[in-house]
């Protein structure tokens, strides 16, 4: 195997999922509440990563339409978990923008008192990797 | 006569160890045995009896004889190196020294055991008179004077001092080597004599002093021999014997060994190790065993020590009365009980 696209590898590394395991059943897309808002559908995330077309993924609307509801992760029968892939793609974008990890002590001053706790938890869940 | 303060012994040991390997009684996990001296060794020269006798220094429990190396299908043989380094055995008691004499008669007579001979040649014995003999001691029965040991150097512990007297050339040489640490004291002779008398006095009171060797020894031949050999007494005596090798392995005179091969994967190490006539495979041969009962093996041990050996060695017994077997036999059997068991028999003869 020649040197692979480092971004695709990075997504695989961050997400911990292996796109080769996908059997193309589509259960992810069938489960997705944001399906209709997305230009690239959840089951396609897998093939985009597999085909190493990360650029399209990064530029897609889907990237920001995913709710991180984890339905696809929960239901994927093959442990491919497209939600994790898109999340990883998002992280790549975020990190590229120079917005790498926050330090724990930076957080309190950034928090608006009105911010719902739920959002914080969700953010942690998403960005802890 | 020279002397050195007991407190200063470690300096003496250090000095000796500079040019010799030094064997002396060392305490390890509560037991005193002869071992090689080192700075941190827990030396205990006042212990009367080491568990094992010091015969290891001349006749180790196991030693390699030669090595066969296999390269493809060719075999080459490398003999083990003979001892070529001088060593000193410090603190040997009179009985153990006599034990070495017993071994000498076996290993130094023709054919000479070169491994043993090399060790004897390079070894210097520093003897130590027994300070407080115990109830298990019976060296006097074999004519040994534990107050006046004969070796390359003889020493006595008197009033916190070790009195030192070279008796042989080897002893003189060693004395010269450590002379810096010794002081000459003509008064010491008298003190030592006093000490000797004191020890002899105690020896007289030991419970085994009355032991009679009548009916044993080199004159047990012909009918007397058959009678002893076939005596029913053996049948009663051996019964509690566990057939372990304790008596043999603590004994200063037992000299039987077995030769074995060890497959190292690259070749074979041929080594010898002490054997015990108490073991069921003692003198085992292809056809089986010529002593096939424990009674026979038990009898062998004592007949050898008290009859066969004396017959072959001008009446010298191959027991020195050190009493180690008396102390260590798990079943409280021992040579004294054997000798005593025949006492009455002897009378009837």
């Amino acid at each position, binding site marked *: 195997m020649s040197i692979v696209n480092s971004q695709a590898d990075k997504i695989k590394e961050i997400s911990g999922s292996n796109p080769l395991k996908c059997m193309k059943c589509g259960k992810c897309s069938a489960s997705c509440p944001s399906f209709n808002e997305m230009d690239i559908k959840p089951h396609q995330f897998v093939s985009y990563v597999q085909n190493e077309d990360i650029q399209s993924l990064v530029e897609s609307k889907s990237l920001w339409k995913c709710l991180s509801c984890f339905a696809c992760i929960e239901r994927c029968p093959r442990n491919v978990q497209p939600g994790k892939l898109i999340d990883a793609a998002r992280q790549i974008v975020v990190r590229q923008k120079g917005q790498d990890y926050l330090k724990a002590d930076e957080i309190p001053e950034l928090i608006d008192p009105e911010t719902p706790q739920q959002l914080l938890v969700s953010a942690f869940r998403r960005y802890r990797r | 006569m020279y002397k050195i303060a007991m407190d200063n012994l470690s300096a003496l040991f250090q000095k000796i160890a500079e040019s010799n390997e030094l064997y002396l009684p060392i305490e390890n996990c509560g037991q005193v045995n002869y071992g090689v001296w080192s700075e941190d060794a827990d030396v205990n020269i006042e212990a009367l009896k080491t568990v094992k006798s010091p015969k290891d220094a001349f006749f180790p429990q196991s030693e390699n004889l030669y090595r066969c190396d296999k390269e493809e299908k060719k075999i080459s043989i490398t003999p083990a190196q003979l001892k070529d380094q001088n060593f000193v055995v410090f603190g040997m008691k009179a009985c153990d020294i006599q034990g070495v004499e017993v071994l000498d008669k076996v290993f130094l007579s023709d054919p000479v055991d070169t491994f043993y001979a090399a060790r004897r040649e390079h070894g210097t014995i520093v003897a130590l008179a027994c300070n407080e003999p115990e109830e298990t001691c019976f060296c006097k029965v074999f004519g040994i004077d534990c107050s006046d040991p004969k070796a390359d150097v003889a020493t006595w512990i008197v009033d916190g001092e070790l009195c030192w007297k070279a008796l042989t050339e080897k002893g003189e040489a060693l004395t010269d080597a450590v002379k810096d640490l010794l002081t000459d004291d003509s008064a010491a002779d008298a003190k030592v004599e006093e000490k000797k008398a004191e020890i002899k006095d105690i020896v007289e*009171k030991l419970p*085994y002093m009355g032991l009679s060797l009548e009916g044993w020894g080199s004159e047990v031949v012909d009918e007397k021999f058959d009678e002893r050999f076939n005596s029913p007494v053996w049948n009663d005596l051996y019964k509690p014997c566990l057939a372990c*090798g*304790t008596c043999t*392995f603590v004994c200063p005179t037992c000299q039987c060994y077995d030769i074995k091969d060890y497959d190292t994967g690259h070749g074979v190490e041929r*080594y010898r190790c002490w054997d015990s006539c108490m073991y069921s495979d003692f003198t085992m041969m292809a056809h089986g065993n010529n002593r096939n009962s424990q009674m026979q093996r038990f009898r062998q041990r004592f007949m050898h020590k008290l009859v066969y050996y004396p017959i072959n060695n001008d009446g010298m017994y191959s027991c020195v009365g050190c009493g180690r077997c008396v102390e260590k036999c798990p079943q409280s059997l021992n040579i004294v009980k054997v000798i005593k068991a025949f006492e009455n028999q002897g009378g009837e003869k």
Partner: protein
Amino acid sequence: MQELIARAKELLADGTVARVIGWKAGDLPYNPEPAYFEKEEDFDDFVYNSFCGANLSKLMIEACKLEGKTLVCLKPCDTYSFNQLLTEHRVDRDKAYIIGVGCKGKLDIERIKKQGIKGIKSIKGAEITDDAETLTIDTLYGEKTCAFKDAMLERCHVCKGKEHKIYDEIIGESKDTKDAERFAEVEKIEAMSPEEKFAFFQKELSKCIRCNACRNACPACSCRKCVFDSTKFDSQQKANVDSFEEKMFHIIRAFHVAGRCTDCGECSRVCPQGIPLHLFNRKFIKDIDELYGEYQAGEEVVERGPLTSYTFEDAEPGIVAERG
């Protein structure tokens, strides 16, 4: 003791037994030897005192092959060994007449000598009828004393109890002498680091002279031919050539008696080098208790021991690492 002698003579006289296995007085105050008694006059030397530590049950293997019954004197802890031998068909119950002899703890002469007492002429307080807490020892170097407890064999400090597990009759009283935790020493070692453990055993085992006394005294090591004497495994039995030899010997010996060892303590009692050999066997006993349920070999005659049975849920060998 007199009651015991009288009863033994009686059983011998009426033909109930053909011989008696007991102890014969030694030539020193502390060295009685196990002996056979077949005639009335033999009993002149019969002795039973606190130095009669030897476990006579193993002698019954040979005795059971003889004509007629053999009377054997067994202390409470010896009866466990007898039961274990029965379990393994090594002795014949019908050929044995067991007198359970009373025991109030047995003495270890080594422990007395360790206290610097030498030149022993006589010892008072070791008679079986005595309830003395102190031994009075007359020596060539004056009179000495020693607390009975301090002179007791290691095994008596972890006494299994005063009950005889098998007997035809009991003569004399027994006392539970337990005053220490059975597994305390094992636990101490378990708590060590691997390096300390290794150093500990290396040091102790370096004394081993391969005399096989532990094996030959052990009632569980009753094989007709030990693997270490056999050519089948190419295992050396008498050489202490390399330190590995001893480890191999002691591990395998402990393994062979695992689940069968009654913890009678003979191995440690007879070791001429004072190696605490019971620490091996007791480790297995502790493991068996913890992993497969409390088990005391020889408590009764059973069909299967812990290593010849199993359950589906047994711990995996990996537990050793998990326990840390």
